[in-house]
């Protein structure tokens, strides 16, 4: 009784009981086997579907995180959970016996605000609680709540920020025109952001996750617009003669890299977003396109065909010193700089196919991330520096996939029958 009282005091809304983080040391090599049974539906709880729905979303999020492997023995998991609920105990030995290294115990009950969810995670080695937190959420928002719980568990267990609450912007031709959409990191909840009757391309997030910059032909010419994801209308930011494309907002939000051909050739420029003033960064006979920022904002990477074929280049902004990064392969495009700063992911043509590779920002050997007979392009890092989202075209159909660069098992996240391309992963939103 005393213990329960202490626990319930600790379980006040929004505070985490567990600051004990069990760091998964071999985090890239081995996933923690975790049991995620249906949440216990307490008296007056909204509905059984809600309780099992939260657990299902949580399980999927934990699996996509790369750190956990939820137990597939659904029947055993639910039976063990039923035993626990009936007896009011957590049978650690039983969970361990069915193969779980950790077990998630959740419960739902009704509250004034909608639903109260309590969630605890136990380690089956020793049986201690490694995470406990209570949440309140409106009934309509339980998917988002599950994403939050997943990220909280991942942080408590691994010390790494999760990606379950992040968003992915992309281009889809659902309406017959390519338009900008945003979805959850797992492909759910897709909704249209741009409202054009023209072509929209290359979305890229502002660092605060509030806005997107993209190219639109709404005035019958390629120009750059910035639009709030939450709604409102798109505001033109670059409408020079010729090409205005591939905008990339700086990590501090103050400026934007872009490719413009107003001076007679596609070159990289930097625009001060407050004043609109421009600084030209490249001056070559080739075309320059697809710029991106290093996370400290001091360097940029971009594509240039100054050597005769498209290759990745890195420029130090202070001295404008530029070096070519890629030498393997005759067609290397679409760079994106890891939020941890240590890697650049890009797409490389090898034979007929395009695969993703990563390379250090100072060059050296590249590592292949994707393979197989597909055209993999437009990679974009998740804020965890571990996952990459990209478009993969197979038999002329394009879908969005995510891949853990260490495990290298692509997961398709778009399941509809129209083409989805050019994904961009938001920064951490929580």
């Amino acid at each position, binding site marked *: 009784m005393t213990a329960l009282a202490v626990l319930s005091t600790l379980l006040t809304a929004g505070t985490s009981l567990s600051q004990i983080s069990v760091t998964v040391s071999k985090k890239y090599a081995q996933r923690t086997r975790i049991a995620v049974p249906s949440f216990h539906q307490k008296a007056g709880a909204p509905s059984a579907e809600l309780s099992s729905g939260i657990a299902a979303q949580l399980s999927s999020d934990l699996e996509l995180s790369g750190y956990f492997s939820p137990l597939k023995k659904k029947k055993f998991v639910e039976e063990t959970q039923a035993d626990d609920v009936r007896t009011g105990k957590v049978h650690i030995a039983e969970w361990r016996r069915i193969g779980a290294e950790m077990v998630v115990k959740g419960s739902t009950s009704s509250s004034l605000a909608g639903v109260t969810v309590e969630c605890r995670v136990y380690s089956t080695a020793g049986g201690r609680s490694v995470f406990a937190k209570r949440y309140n959420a409106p009934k309509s928002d339980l998917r988002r709540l599950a994403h939050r719980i997943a990220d909280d568990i991942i942080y408590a267990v691994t010390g790494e920020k999760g990606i379950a609450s992040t968003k992915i912007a992309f281009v889809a031709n659902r309406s017959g025109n390519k338009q900008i959409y945003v979805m959850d990191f797992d492909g759910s909840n897709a909704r249209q952001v741009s409202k054009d009757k023209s072509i929209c391309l290359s979305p890229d997030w502002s660092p605060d996750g509030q806005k997107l910059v993209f190219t639109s032909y709404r005035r019958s010419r390629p120009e750059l617009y910035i639009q709030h994801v939450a709604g409102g209308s798109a505001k033109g930011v670059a409408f*020079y003669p010729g*090409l205005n494309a591939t905008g990339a907002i700086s990590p501090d939000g103050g400026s934007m890299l872009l490719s413009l051909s107003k*001076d007679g*050739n*596609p070159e990289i420029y930097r625009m001060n977003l407050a004043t609109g003033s421009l600084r030209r960064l490249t001056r*070559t006979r080739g*075309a320059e*396109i697809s710029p991106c920022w290093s996370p400290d904002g001091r360097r940029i990477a971009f594509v240039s065909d100054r050597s005769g074929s498209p290759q990745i280049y890195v420029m130090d902004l202070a001295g404008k010193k530029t070096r070519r990064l890629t030498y393997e392969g005759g067609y290397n495009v679409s760079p994106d700089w890891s939020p941890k700063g240590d890697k650049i992911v890009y*797409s490389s043509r090898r034979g007929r196919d395009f695969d993703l590779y990563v390379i250090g920002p100072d060059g050296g050997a590249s590592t292949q991330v994707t393979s197989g007979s597909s055209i993999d392009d437009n990679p974009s890092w998740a804020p965890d520096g571990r996952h990459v989202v990209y478009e993969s075209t197979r038999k002329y159909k394009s879908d969005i996939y995510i891949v853990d660069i260490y495990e290298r098992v692509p997961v398709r996240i778009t399941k509809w029958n129209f083409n989805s391309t050019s994904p961009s992963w938001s920064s951490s939103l929580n």
Partner: protein
Amino acid sequence: MRNVVAAVLVVLLVVTVAGCKKPRRGATIPSSGPGTAGGGWGEGIPLSEMPDSMIFGEITDPEMKAIFEDIHFDYDDPSIKDSERGILENIAAWLNSNPAVVIQVEGHCDERGSNEYNLALGDRRALSVRGYLVDLGVGPDMVYTISYGEERPVDTGHDESAWWQNRRGHFMVAPE
């Protein structure tokens, strides 16, 4: 009558001079891939502001249609092929004798490769065409450019023939 004769003479003279003028930029350089040929260089001809009201449409006039044929490009290459120069010379001659006509060159790519890089490649194709026409005496302000990258194929097939059709410079005209 004398004025008309004078005007015809002036037009003839302009056409003759333009016809003799050697293109300076790109066109005379052997094509050896992007970055070495084509009109769009680092120091290209700056583009003119396009009035907001200016909307280009497909060419419908039969005489113009016969002259303003699509020109085609090699894979991953923005430079003007020898085989396409005749078309551009006819177009330049026509524009030089119709100096009030404003056109737009659309640069297009086939579906292969990166759609972002193809935006740049399509732009360079359009700029190559513009540079070639300017070198033949056409006013830079009379030729606007636009890149559609790989976004507007004329042939939605996935073979060499479709790709050839799609790697094109296409001409549009502003209504007078």
